[in-house]
Every structure is written in structure tokens, then in C-alpha cells.
């Protein structure tokens, strides 16, 4: 504890972050959050610590562990699954600040003033990559591989499908889930077989929202020389040449911004901050690595659709 006294004395801001089940190194959601931390460390000179809890009761205990530490001021929970616990902790520790990525905002309840909810409009991004897939497919069939079947992932599935159908109503969309427990987010073997199944049935592009399981989808893409779409982070490097694009969430930016506000004493909780296409909080990847995979026409059309979504002229969600 001597050390911690020193850090507070030095006046350095210290941040605690609790990861979602997948943990560090998932090359996707959690890693995006981690990038935000690193950036803050490099550019703002803050310190951080993190915990990777298991499922169940550990989330609260992990948050509490940080909340009871005198040297830690700001605490992140990464993932919608933290919603209840972080709300509770924010109420119990009014002197600390909290932020939760993918917080599930319940209109009937108020968010504590020391809690900032970070929401991402995945549906907009998914719709957009769905449209790109629908425009790019040559076989008139695309696929979706989800991790654990849950409302959140269903949302990805539905808006992706809506995007596909919006540009290509005749296109088939295959849908598979890797499982029904949290482990379904870390089962690449299953992901690969699911993807191979879809490819063998005629799909030529598969979008995944399945955490580490998606790495299996990419393997299948490499093996069959077909395309896949990444999620959360730019996943091009997981299968160079076979990743059509990625639906990215700027979790890193959100985390970084939040830390900067805290550092500047401008932390502004008690509300939900929403990141959508308009603020580039969600987006798709188009750069010199993958621009040869996305045709000029497709790119143009995608940008038009982006504008329509931002203008609220498209329902991004398939009922």
C-alpha cells in the first residue's frame, strides 16, 4: 500500500477497468477498450489497473475492489453485462466515478450522477456492413455467425440482415449461433465449422459477432478463400485479404475521452452518451488494405446509406 500512497501523492490519475468475460486479447471488444487505456496512459500520463473476472458474482466484487482502493478514481465496466452491478456500485460509492461501455439504459430508472453510460448504436454499423455484404455478394447468399444467443447479439443479427435485404432483397442470409452459454464467445472451433457450413451452402461473405469464436470464422474464410466481416475492432490482420471490412465500435475513443474528461475534472455522469454513425462512434472500415475488396460503386452506395441512416430515414432494425 506504500506504492499506492505514492501515486496519489504524485497526483497521477489512476483508472481501474474490469473486462468482460472474453478478457484481454480478444482482438475485438475488450482489446478496443484496452487500446483506449493505453492511449490514455501514453498521451495523458494516467496509470491503470485491470481485472478479468469470471462470470456471475465476480463482476461486483471486482468493481468493489477498485472502488475501495483510495488511489483509484475512475472505474470502467466493459460490457452490457455490468449494467446492474455498476449502477449499484455507483450508488454505494458516490465519491468515485464510473463508466460502463454498452450500458443497457432503462428509461424508467435514472443513472447515478457519478456514472456515465456509454452506448453504441451497433445497429447502424451492422446495417451498413450488411448493405456492403449485400452489394458485394456474388452468390446471392451471405451469413451471420453469433456467439452466445442473447438479445444483444440478436440485435446485431437483425440489423445486419436488414442491411442486406435493404440493398438486395433476394439475397439469402444464413444465421448460426455458436452456443447458449458464455463459452460460445470463445469457441473458434465451433465458429469455423459453422462458417464452413454456411460457405458450403453457398454463402460467400460472413459477418460474425462472436468474440473469439469469430477467429474460427476467419479461418474458414481463409480455407475456402471467401470473405468475412470483422466486428468491434478492425480485424483485417486476422485474415489479410479475406476480411471484407469490419464493423467497428470506437470503444477505445470512448474510453479515452472519458479518462480525459476525468483528468480535466470535467467528468459528466448521470447520463447516457450515445455513439452512432454520426459521430463515427460506430463505422465500417475502408482503407488502403481492403479498398480492393470493396468496389467503387459499393463504397458510394454505402456512403449514401450512411447519410440516410444519420438522417433517420432508414429503420436499421429488422422486426
Amino acid at each position, binding site marked *: 500500500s506504500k506504492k499506492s500512497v505514492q501515486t496519489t501523492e504524485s497526483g497521477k490519475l489512476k483508472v481501474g477497468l474490469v473486462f468482460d468475460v472474453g478478457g484481454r486479447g480478444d482482438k475485438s471488444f475488450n482489446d478496443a477498450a484496452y487500446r483506449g487505456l493505453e492511449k490514455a496512459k501514453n498521451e495523458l500520463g494516467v496509470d491503470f*489497473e*485491470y*481485472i*478479468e*473476472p*469470471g*462470470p*456471475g*458474482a*465476480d463482476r*461486483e*466484487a*471486482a468493481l*468493489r*475492489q477498485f472502488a475501495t482502493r483510495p488511489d483509484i478514481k475512475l472505474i470502467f465496466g466493459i460490457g*452490457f*453485462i455490468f*449494467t*446492474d452491478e455498476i449502477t449499484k456500485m455507483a450508488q*454505494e460509492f458516490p465519491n468515485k466515478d464510473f463508466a460502463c461501455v454498452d450500458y*443497457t439504459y432503462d428509461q424508467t430508472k435514472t443513472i447515478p450522477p457519478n456514472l456515465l453510460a456509454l452506448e453504441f448504436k451497433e445497429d447502424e454499423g451492422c446495417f451498413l456492413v450488411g448493405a456492403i455484404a449485400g452489394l458485394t455478394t456474388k452468390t446471392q447468399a451471405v451469413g451471420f455467425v453469433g456467439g*452466445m*444467443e*442473447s*438479445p*444483444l447479439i*440478436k*440485435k446485431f443479427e437483425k440489423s445486419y440482415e436488414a442491411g442486406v435485404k435493404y440493398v438486395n432483397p433476394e439475397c439469402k442470409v444464413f444465421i448460426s449461433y455458436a452456443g*447458449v*452459454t*458464455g463459452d460460445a464467445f470463445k469457441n473458434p472451433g465451433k465458429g469455423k465449422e459453422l462458417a464452413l457450413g454456411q460457405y458450403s451452402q453457398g454463402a460467400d461473405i460472413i459477418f460474425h459477432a462472436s468474440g473469439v469464436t469469430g477467429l474460427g470464422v476467419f479461418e474458414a474464410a481463409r480455407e475456402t478463400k471467401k470473405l468475412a466481416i470483422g466486428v468491434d475492432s478492425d480485424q483485417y490482420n486476422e485474415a489479410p485479404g479475406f476480411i471484407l471490412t469490419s464493423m467497428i465500435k470506437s470503444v477505445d475513443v470512448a474510453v479515452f475521452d472519458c479518462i480525459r474528461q476525468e483528468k480535466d475534472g470535467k467528468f459528466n455522469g448521470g447520463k447516457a452518451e450515445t455513439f452512432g454513425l454520426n459521430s463515427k462512434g460506430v463505422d465500417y472500415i475502408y482503407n488502403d488494405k481492403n479498398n480492393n475488396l470493396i468496389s467503387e460503386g459499393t463504397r458510394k452506395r454505402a456512403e449514401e446509406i450512411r447519410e440516410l441512416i444519420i438522417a433517420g430515414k432508414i429503420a436499421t432494425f429488422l422486426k
Partner: protein
Amino acid sequence: MNKVIYSILGPLAAIIIALFIGAIIISLIGKDPVEVYGVLFYGTLGNSYGIGQVLFKATPLIFTGLSVAFAFKAGLFNIGAEGQMIIGGFAAAWTGFTFVTLPWIILIPLTIIAAFVGGALWGFIAGYLKAKYGSHEVINTIMLNFIAAALASYLVNEIYGIPATIHTPEVSGSSFLLRFDAITGLFPGSPFNTSFLAAILCTIIFYFIINRTPFGYQIRTLGLNKNAAEYARMKIKKLVVLSMLISGGIAGIGSINFIFGYKHYYELGFSEGAGYIGIAVALIARNNPFAIIITAFFFGILEYGGLTINTMVPKELVTILQALLIILVITFVRIIDVLKIKFLKSA
């Protein structure tokens, strides 16, 4: 006296060696073992919140340990406590959020009965298949675990779930099991709750049934010598079914700790593998109900301990320690036995 020394010598040596190996690992990754162990100890047993967390983690393990042990007494290997806990938990939660108007005096027993019945149903399936078709309960209970997880997922996601979450609605306030924190002010902040008392009660009932009643006598006979049970004209099929059913029921009650004592709703994945750890708990406690409480407490330390040191070292260090400890204990028991005989002989 000598006997006591010999019986603790093995585990003691095992603990020391396991901690020593752990220390080497910690040093290898450039951390200070003394500091890490210090935090581990302080975080779990060094403060009342930590102890509360440990007991909270231990509570379901007592139930699942008892569950596995009960079946074991009848010579059956129940790998299915996990699934039984899931189904029991869902049944209990459903009762809790459906009969919201009932007063606690009725609702709490009702939810516990529901937890028992749910788990018992899942255990019954394996028991019935064993009795009727002779199919191996080990495989069937493993399969039923997967099926239970899938079923719970369906029920939560498609029918009873709150949108955008992985849990059901909250159960009625009158079904809450109070935290010790709230009653006594002890263990502040930890979700350690009165379901622990239910676990203790369950342990006593377990002991009573197994060791004091004719039914328990029959169960033990079946477990030790099925052929003798048959010649004593015990109703073997009935006993097989009943013991799996009771075993499942006990595991089912294991769910109330999380559902009614902590979160107040059913959440997918709440069981955290307690059903599987229960097997280790029961086996290490040699199916002795009171030893199960102690073993569960010990596993509680390790279960929670990982989190306390997670900011310094990967929490899997604790899993490794846990595994080393089990292996060392079971081997050392034997080594000490051999040493003891040699010693006594030479004396």
C-alpha cells in the same frame, strides 16, 4: 495423538509445497511472491468483507458437494449437479417472480421447494434411465448439463428474459434471503447471506438421513455392495431413482444463494461451474457431510482469491495452486501412510 499428527501432516506438506511452487511461478514472472501471497491472504481471510466473499462462494459448493456425495453414497456418480442447479434455479426464480403477492413466510419455503423439485426432476431423469435401461448415469448427467444450459438459455432469451439482458425479471421482494450484512452488519458489502444457514441445515439433514434412518442404511448398502442390497431384498431400482432425485434436489437448492441471496433474478451462467467443483469438494471430503463444509470453505478461498490478486498476476495462478494442492494432498496421504507404517514398524 499420533494419529492426528499423521492426518494433518499430509495436507500440511501439500500446502507448503504447493505454495512453494506457486512462489517460484510468481518469481518467474517477475513479481514478489510475498506480496502476492500477502494480498491473497489479506483479501480473502484478512478482513471481514473477504471472509464474507469466501463464505458466499462456499455456500453453493456445500450444496453441490452434498449433492454429489449423496449420490455417491448410493454408488452413483452424479456429474450433473451443474445442470440440476440450473434447472432448480430457474424453477425457483420462476416461482419467485410469478407468485409476487405471497408473503415471505410462504414464498421462501415455496421457492426452496421449487429449487429442490427442479433439481430433483433433472436428477430423476438420470436415475430413471439408470434404473430402467441401465444406462450410465455419468454420461447421462453430462448430457443433461448441456441440455439444461440450452433450456435455460431458451427460457431466458425467448420467454422470460428482460430485453437486452441475460436475466429474468426480479423475484418478489418477499422471497429475498437476507444478507448477513443487513442483519448483523458483519461482512459489510459482501453478498454472504442466509442461504448459508440452509446449507448447514442441509448438511445436518444429510447426515441424519444417511446415518440414522433405514433409508440411509439402504442407500449405503447399495453403494457399497449392490448384490448384498439385492439379497437383502431392498428395492434397488427405487433406491437408484430416489437417490438421484434427492441428489439433484440438493444441487437445485444450491441456486438460492445467487438468486435469492444476491442478484434477485435468474441470470444465465450464474452457476459458475459450482456443480463441477462440487465433485471435487465431495471427493476430497470423502463424502463426509461435515468435511464438505470445510472443503467448500477452502475452495471458496481459492475461488475468490484469484480476483484479489488479479491486478498483479493472472488469476489463473490460483487455479494452478488449487490443482497442485489437490494432487499433492491425495498423493501425500499415501506417502504419509507408508511412512507411518515404516515408522511404527521400526519403533
